[in-house]
């Protein structure tokens, strides 16, 4: 899933300084799971803003709603017309959701309420770790299900760098060295041969942005 973190309250309040009618739009998919921009977090931010403006003696309208998926047009149709009534819409979705919102709401101003961080997984409640860089050339089959492109700070392909120490990364001693993990897992699997041949330089063309794809069935539409 996409992991995001909510922007600090003061930053959001500063961004909203010149607006009178504010709408906060959440997304109930990835950013809800990582507790950054789902229905609950939208409610918290709206309450924080209302209380803060009340203390400031300012009359600002704060309304809120959350759609199932802000990155999908189908889920956005019910809300778009209503958003035209507002000076600004704060998107609590990831950058993709916020951009679809901006496209659909034009010319209404859109502001991001979260910082989108990474594609990750949840090893335990409240913890998220990055596990995929969307490189477009998946090698998990060779590397024992551990991604060197993501888990190695340098994204290197042929074994640990000289900075690794006791299985930890040179960048952060709290983090594991991806290549030590890969080596140890493949050793357990009896598949070390997978990584004994040098991997060629990666194909970065697959990552040329903005990437796009069309399902076979929809080609030609």
């Amino acid at each position, binding site marked *: 899933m996409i992991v995001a973190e909510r922007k600090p309250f003061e930053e959001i309040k500063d961004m909203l300084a010149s607006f009178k009618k504010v709408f906060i739009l959440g997304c109930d998919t990835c950013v809800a799971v990582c507790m950054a921009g789902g229905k609950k977090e939208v409610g918290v931010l709206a309450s924080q803003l209302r209380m803060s403006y009340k203390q400031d003696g300012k009359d600002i309208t704060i309304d809120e709603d959350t759609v199932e998926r802000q990155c999908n047009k189908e889920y956005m149709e019910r809300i778009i017309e209503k958003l035209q009534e507002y000076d600004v819409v704060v998107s609590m979705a990831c950058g993709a959701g916020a951009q679809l919102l901006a496209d659909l709401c034009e010319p209404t101003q859109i502001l991001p309420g979260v910082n989108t961080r990474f594609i990750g997984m949840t090893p335990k409640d409240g913890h998220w770790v990055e596990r995929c860089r969307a490189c477009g050339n998946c090698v998990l089959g060779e590397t024992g299900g551990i991604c060197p492109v993501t888990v190695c700070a340098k994204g290197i392909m*042929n074994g640990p760098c000289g900075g690794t120490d006791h299985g930890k990364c040179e960048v952060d001693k709290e983090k594991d060295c991806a290549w030590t993990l890969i080596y140890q897992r493949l050793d357990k699997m009896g598949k070390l041969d997978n990584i004994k041949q040098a991997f060629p*330089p990666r194909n970065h063309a697959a990552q040329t942005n903005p990437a796009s794809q069309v399902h076979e069935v929809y080609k030609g539409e």
Partner: protein
Amino acid sequence: MAVSFKNALKSGEFVITAEVGPPKGTDIEEMKQHIELLKDKVHGINMTDNQSSVMRLSSLVGCHIIKEMGGEPILQMTGRDRNRMALQSDLISAAVLGIENVLCLTGDHITMGDHKDAKPVHDLESVQILQAMKCLEAGKDLGGNALKGTPKFCAGAVVTPEADPIEPQLMKFEKKVKAGAEFFQTQAVYDLDNFKRFMDYAGKFDTKILAGIVLLVSAGMAKFMNKNVAGIFVPENLVSEMDSVSKADQLKKGVEIAGRMIRKLKEEKICHGVHIMAIGKEGVVPDILKEAGL
């Protein structure tokens, strides 16, 4: 020295290399003094490549100056700051300038240095830079395009004999040998019994191993490296030996220890040579060599 680094490696004589760091800025006087001091005493001088992720004069220009001064340069190339286009371009540029010795490294991470916000590249890592050199030598670039004039290199790489765990490191060492590394300069070694065990393994491969000798300048430095530097282990007896003399005499003691180690490595034919890193104290390298009887 009259004989080239590559020929020295081939000849089977005990090979000595040392390291010079280029300056941050345009004042190259101190660097030139270090080159002058070393050029006739060692078989090759490594010029570091934005060492420790700190921006400096380029390794390529540093090597060119070594060459101009009559020394034998070893170009260090990391994959941190340049993609495959820039690396290949620098490699053929080096060849044009008569620089043939290249040490390939992955490079410290950008966050370890003085431009922490910069974009790390890592398009190629050490094994792939070695492969790129082989490719260029065969007359093609990594895009498969023919070159007009082909370079000739003497390719090298690094290995950490004290790495823990060692197995992933050795797997990578073998990949480097296969990718064409003709020589290795190791991370610092202090425990020669451990190093002998490493050489029992590494000596089986068709490549030359130069043991990394990092000059101890103080007991504090030894303790600091044990705690903070990956793959470096200074045994307790050496730390105590450094501590046994006054602070003012510790550099002299460090020179003595380095010299003693080099002498033993040579006399007992443990490896093919040494790579001396006297970081910030390049001036004492001749003293180390004297102490080693070289």
